């Protein structure tokens, strides 16, 4: 077993309204950053995982995302595993 760092990025699904991202975009525009065409706000989780291999860590991370870390109805996720 060795330790892996799993970084999980959870984002609201593109088709759905993201009011948080929109509010941040409006605030940036109010600050004069008119070049910001859109903002989407998600979550970034960093997990320390014990696993036999990088592949096993990735499989486990995806199970965690499917069961808890992301809502399959509203969110998409990506997992990155590093030693």
């Amino acid at each position, binding site marked *: 077993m060795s330790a892996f760092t799993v970084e999980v990025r959870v984002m609201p699904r593109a088709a759905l309204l993201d009011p948080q991202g929109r509010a941040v975009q409006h605030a940036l525009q109010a600050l004069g950053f008119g070049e910001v065409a859109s903002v989407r706000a998600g979550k970034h989780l960093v997990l320390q995982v014990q696993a036999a291999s990088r592949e096993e860590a990735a499989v486990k991370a995806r199970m965690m995302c499917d069961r808890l870390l992301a*809502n399959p*109805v509203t969110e998409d996720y990506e997992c990155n595993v590093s030693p």
Partner: protein
Amino acid sequence: MQRVAVVVFPGSNCDADTLDAARAAGSDAYYVWHRDADLKRADAVILPGGFSYGDYLRSGAIARFSPVLRAVAAHARAGGSVLGICNGFQILCEAGLLPGALMRNARLKFLSRPVRVRVEATDTPFTTGYEREEELTLPIAHGDGRYVADPQTLAELKANAQVVLRYVTENPNGSIHDIAGVCNAGRNVVGIMPHPERRNAQVLGGQDGARVFSSLEGRNATQHAGDLRAVDDRHLRV
């Protein structure tokens, strides 16, 4: 008299009002702590409003892994009545006992005020006391009340008439199709965003919410009437 279990999570804050409302409707209501996997022979289970686990990660996401939820899921699978109010609705969606999900209000603000809703389904255990298309004033109090579902789920909701409550006159949170409450395909599991327990007596400004709770008792009375007819042979021969 129905036995009504009101589940208490860390962070529930509508549990006492919900218990009172169920008792006022004549039910034998009692609390069940979220770590307790025994519903104590409940006829109906209510998941009350609040902020279970501080709404961490997503509203309802952590509460769904409480031991009591396994018992609630088994109760629901067996056809038992389950009602989720506000945070309880969010938990039932996260647990997969109801379709869809509840996201941040479209205009981000936490909303706490009365709204108008229309009763769209009167054939659930919690709405038999209402008339179809009856309009009610009920309070909402939520930050994550925007109901969303994929197009296939929405088509199923429509085909099976699973929308229980719909916002009328205004949509406060951006819910798709103005949805304020839904039930499962079996119609025994219901989730609603408004708080009927906060509107069950004139002293609270109205009693439009009272029949959510008295519907349980009314259904019981109907069953008894059915039993009586069944043993009365004159009626049986009709």
